[in-house]
């Protein structure tokens, strides 16, 4: 009897669920978003604008070194924004050097003060945190500074720093908790003595002589601006740089960095990090080719060996939300839905998506529209342009040459390329041998553009317009028909005409 009752009770519970759902259950919110980063904020604000009752939970677990920050997520606090500002600081250092060639009389030594820069950057980031708070208020989105986790498909638990619990129920739940930098697991001393990108932008004092471990864009961008502001910087690379990016271009980017003054330790893997009595950090590493061990001391060690999704504390396994076994990211469908109905995930947390702010923002807005029943439009993740803000900037959209060859075979593609020299470099007497353009097209027919790559000043600005070409089905013939804007660097993209196949010298000459 008990068993029968129990069984019936269970059945009753399910039907009660369904029954009550049909009776328009009063959830606290139409939508609860866990994660107040680029994606989470965009989604919640858009949903609120469409008339939904929305709450967003944002909480920053301090880094291993104790760094924490406010609302806005990675981009605002420990990503794009502070990175670009520090990159600008480095660029301005070069500008000051160039200025002398243009007749500007700068006497005496030129030095850089970390604290002035970091104060200014941190103040700006704080103003953005504030700005986001205000925006959420304006759009009537409930903001809760709580660490969110899932209790069931409609219930979210929020935990405050003090340990106080808040329970919220929602019709739909969106997970946009992003990722955090990884620490290596097998290097003694890594976590105790090293920092990550979570910390670098919040340091009060200069990091000094720095070892950057890793060769992702995070590693190279950080090493780039550290070198640019005058710090002794070394990049330690296990195998290749900018994995996933066009490798020929990756080579140009790192070549430039080496010419620019960044040291590279190739084919090297750190073994241990020890703190010396002087306070300096002693790093021991192995060269994977020779097997030799080396040592050097640094003031700081910055780990940039990848990012891991923030899923551990979410309680996803209990609910059966499917995760990718390798990456740990949440598996999602084209509409951002997870394996559990009414739970969605997007941004850096979801599998197979570009880890970029603008895609997260756009995907978040489209998701909000779909959840409000206002549209069925899905996010198009194809041909998203991206830029790496290394000292020699690199902008690209579409396929790398390797990927294009994989998909279309070497004979199926035509690669147009050119080495050009920015006019401003000539008076400044700067070397431009890594300023390069590559346009990969389908061979034959209209020669549809498959991939476009540009290294040079303001690469991001140059690339944006060409990214549009992918929306419009641009072909090589469209480029040929476009008048070049003179004098700019970008005009070289529409004038590109030497193919790799021809083997001819691709250096641009004259007017």
């Amino acid at each position, binding site marked *: 009897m008990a068993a029968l009752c129990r069984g019936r009770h269970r059945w009753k519970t399910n039907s009660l669920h369904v029954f009550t759902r049909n009776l328009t259950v009063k959830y606290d919110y139409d939508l609860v978003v866990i994660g107040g980063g680029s994606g989470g904020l965009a989604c919640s604000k858009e949903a609120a604008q469409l008339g939904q009752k929305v709450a967003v939970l944002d909480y920053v677990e301090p880094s291993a070194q104790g760094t924490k920050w406010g609302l806005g997520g990675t981009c605002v606090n420990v990503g794009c924004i502070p990175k670009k500002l520090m990159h600008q600081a480095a660029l301005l250092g070069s500008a000051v050097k160039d200025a002398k060639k243009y007749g500007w009389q700068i006497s005496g030594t030129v030095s850089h003060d970390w604290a*002035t820069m970091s104060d200014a950057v941190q103040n700006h980031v704080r103003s953005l945190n504030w700005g986001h708070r205000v925006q959420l208020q304006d759009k009537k989105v409930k903001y809760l500074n709580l660490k969110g986790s899932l209790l069931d498909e409609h219930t979210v638990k929020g935990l405050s720093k003090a340990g106080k619990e808040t329970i919220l129920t929602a019709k739909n739940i969106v997970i946009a908790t992003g990722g955090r930098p990884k620490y290596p697991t097998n290097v003694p001393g890594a976590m105790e003595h090293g920092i990550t990108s979570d910390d670098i932008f919040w340091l009060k004092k200069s990091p000094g002589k720095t070892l950057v471990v890793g060769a992702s864009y995070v590693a190279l961008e950080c090493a780039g601006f550290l070198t640019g502001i005058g710090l002794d910087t070394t990049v330690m690379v296990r195998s290749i740089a900018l994995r996933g990016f066009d490798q020929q271009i990756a080579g140009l980017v790192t070549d430039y960095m080496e010419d620019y003054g960044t040291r590279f330790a190739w084919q090297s893997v750190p073994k241990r990090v020890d703190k010396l009595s002087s306070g300096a950090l002693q790093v021991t590493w192995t060269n994977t080719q020779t097997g030799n061990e080396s040592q050097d001391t640094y003031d700081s060690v910055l780990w940039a060996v990848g990012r891991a999704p923030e899923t551990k504390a979410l309680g996803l396994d209990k609910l059966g939300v499917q995760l990718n076994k390798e990456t740990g990211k949440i598996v999602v469908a084209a509409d951002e839905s997870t394996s559990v109905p009414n739970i969605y995930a997007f941004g850096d947390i979801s599998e197979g998506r570009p880890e970029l702010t603008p895609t997260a923002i756009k995907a978040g807005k489209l998701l909000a529209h779909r959840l409000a029943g206002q549209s069925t439009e899905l996010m198009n993740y194809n041909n998203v342009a991206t830029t790496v803000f290394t000292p020699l900037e690199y902008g690209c959209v579409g396929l790398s040459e390797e990927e294009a060859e994989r998909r279309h075979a070497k004979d199926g593609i035509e690669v147009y390329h050119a080495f050009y020299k920015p006019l401003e470099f000539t008076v400044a007497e700067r070397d431009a041998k890594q300023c390069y353009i590559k346009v990969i097209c389908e061979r034959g027919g209209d020669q549809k553009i498959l991939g476009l790559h540009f290294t040079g000043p303001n690469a991001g600005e140059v690339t944006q317009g060409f990214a549009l070409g992918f929306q419009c089905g641009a072909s090589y013939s469209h480029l040929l028909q476009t008048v070049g804007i003179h004098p700019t660097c*970008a005009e070289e993209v529409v004038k590109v005409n030497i193919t790799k196949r021809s083997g001819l010298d691709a250096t641009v000459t004259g007017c």
Partner: protein
Amino acid sequence: MDPPDTLSPGLYDYDLLVIGGGSGGLAVAKEAAGFMKKVLFLDLLAPSPRGAERGSCSDIDSIRKFLQQASLLRQAIQDSQKYGWRFKQEVLHDWSELVQAVQGQVRSASLELKRELRSCGVSHLNAHGRIVAPRTVEVTDVDGRKRRLTAETLVVATGTTPQCLCIPGETEYCITSKDLLSLPRPPGRTLVVGGSAEGLECAGFLSGLGLPVTVALTPDLLPGFDQKTARKIENHMIVAGVDFLYRCSLSKVEQTKDATSGDSAAAPQQGREGTLRVTVISKEGQTLQKDFDTVLVAVGRKACTSDIGLESVGVQRCRDSGRILVNERDQTSVDHIYAIGSVQHGRRSATGLSVHAGKLLARRLYGGGSVLCDYTCVPTVVLTPLEYAACGLSEEKAKLTFGEANVEAYHSHYWPLEWILPARNKNSCYVKVVCHIPDHERVVGLHIMGPNAGDILQGFAAAMKCGLTKQQLDATVGIHPGSAQVLTSLTQTQRMSEALMVRGNC
């Protein structure tokens, strides 16, 4: 390399003879040589009072870019301190060092060009050409030596030269933009006469170098440009410290009695404050006198078509401007004579356009090509302190062409991330996308004002070739952080902005 003295096998000395050293002419010449044609390129224009004028565009454009860069670097130096850079506060500019550096670059570019022409197989003469018979050109070199050469096809690419104000004292004391670098001393207090792009650029460069600049807007501010954006450029310059004189004209320029005497035929020598006195007459008829060290005239450019023999063979020109009338194939009224570049009547003047048109012409003549140059959607850039790049129609032109109700102009100010730390103005940078509503909101005009506007615009110009619509702009994911991405998320329209203003007046 010099052309041979003996006639080559075949009817004419050359397949193609290009008169004029502009970039358009250069482009035709190089491209034609690529098709194994025998090409002669003459790059000397008629000697002017100040001496021989060199080939225009390539040099002038480089010089503009270098001057812009020098003035932008001043801003960069100031900004760098907000980013933590420390150096001795007072930073002065050495004009002669800049001049030397720029002239050095121009010289090496010139040598590079000569080398390139040689390796392309293009014969090049530093000589003046005048058409004396349908296929004959009288070539006069710098020594005065004359000879006659024949060619199957002629291309006129003589470009333009600055227009004069035609007032007393102009030839003796005033300079034009190309003379800037020949000044023996810094320009000092400068008056720029003319609101042309050229004038505003020069004013901007000099102001950016720390010199006091006044612009006399005669006749108009950036004629032909989108007027709302033109006003913004002007405002930006005013805030930067440039003085503007409106509704006036110059009546004469003379040396003040303080000026050192002797050498009165050449440009003013040792610069003492205000060695030139300019008499300005306001629209109301009042006379004003102002003193300057340098007076730069930039009231427009006129075509160099007056002494190259066009009349002798019946090449028709526009009566007012002197520019050559051409069809869509760049052909003049005489079949085998073509014109490329700013000499053409009714077309925009831009180096990029001339080069593009020149290449296409050569391909049509010798490469079996049939693609005509599209003169309708030409991207250009003005290197004013707030750089302005535009492609397609201005808002006014679009409304005139399609009717006001059929045009939607999306716009927005934006604040480049790099400007935040130095706290530069939030509402200077601006973009505008002009759309033709009935045609899927097709983008017919795109305007960008801000740093690196030219570099930003290029890709969008290519997209406009593909028939870019507003929807496609919106569907594109932006590159972050960056300024260009603002164009992918425009929601505010001019219509909305104006409606807001009207309501405010109630």
